[in-house]
């Protein structure tokens, strides 16, 4: 099953933060590692899609005053999720091997 770049990022962040990955920590982790700032709305849309496909499991955490009394929702990756992420990363690596860097600058001939 195919997953997009955002889903890939979210799954990797959840694996890195295991078992404490929730919306804000996932957003901060992706920002720190990639420089991309996704909104909470898009992260939850991706989390919803991944959970519906069975790639993630969630458990309710604590509510704090800073969150207006709302409980956190912690996410963990499932075995099918890990398998899909592996396949997706393998496909990305396979595509990377065929790249000819410098073509945009007319360097491919000089290099080749």
């Amino acid at each position, binding site marked *: 099953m195919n997953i997009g770049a955002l889903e890939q990022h979210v799954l990797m962040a959840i694996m890195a933060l295991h078992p404490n990955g*929730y*919306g*804000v920590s996932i*957003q901060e982790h992706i920002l720190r590692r990639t420089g991309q700032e996704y*909104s*909470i*709305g*898009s992260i*939850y*849309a991706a*989390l*919803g899609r991944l*959970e519906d496909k069975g790639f993630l499991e*969630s458990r*309710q955490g*604590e*509510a*704090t*005053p*800073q*969150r*207006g*009394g*709302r*409980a*956190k*929702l912690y996410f963990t990756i499932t075995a099918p999720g890990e398998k899909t992420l592996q396949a997706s990363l393998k496909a990305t690596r396979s595509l990377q091997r065929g790249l000819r860097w410098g073509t945009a600058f007319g360097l491919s001939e000089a290099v080749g």
Partner: protein
Amino acid sequence: MNEKKKSPAHYVMPCDTGAYMLNGGSVTFNGQSAMIANASVIKAETFSSTVFFGPTVVVHSKDAQAPNPPPIPHDLLRPFARSKRDLAAIGDINELYDRDRARFGRARARRLYWAETLKFLWPLLGRAFSRVIKWAVIIDALKRHLLG
């Protein structure tokens, strides 16, 4: 409101959805308000197995810092708080507001809260709009079929 006094300092309320909101010394649950006087912070899990079953307790310190986000976007979010994911997302937006307020000040935190709220609502509004269009097309087709 169904409220149980645990001790002179603690007020414990059973709730079935977790859809509650804390605002300073008062608590609002499903549109009803009640004052919490001199309550201490108690974890929801503390009572879940001993006093109530399921998602249960709303307790908050009168002195603890509630985020107090801008009311208009906050009220816009509330009708969409249906699933546990939506509730958690709203909690995350509140947490971001609290963090941004400490980092950038209140004015910028309010702008960022508005931005996060609109980004959260946009796909939901888009889905609602497409549902309306779909039903309008179906009803129109039925009308044409039955009348024409």
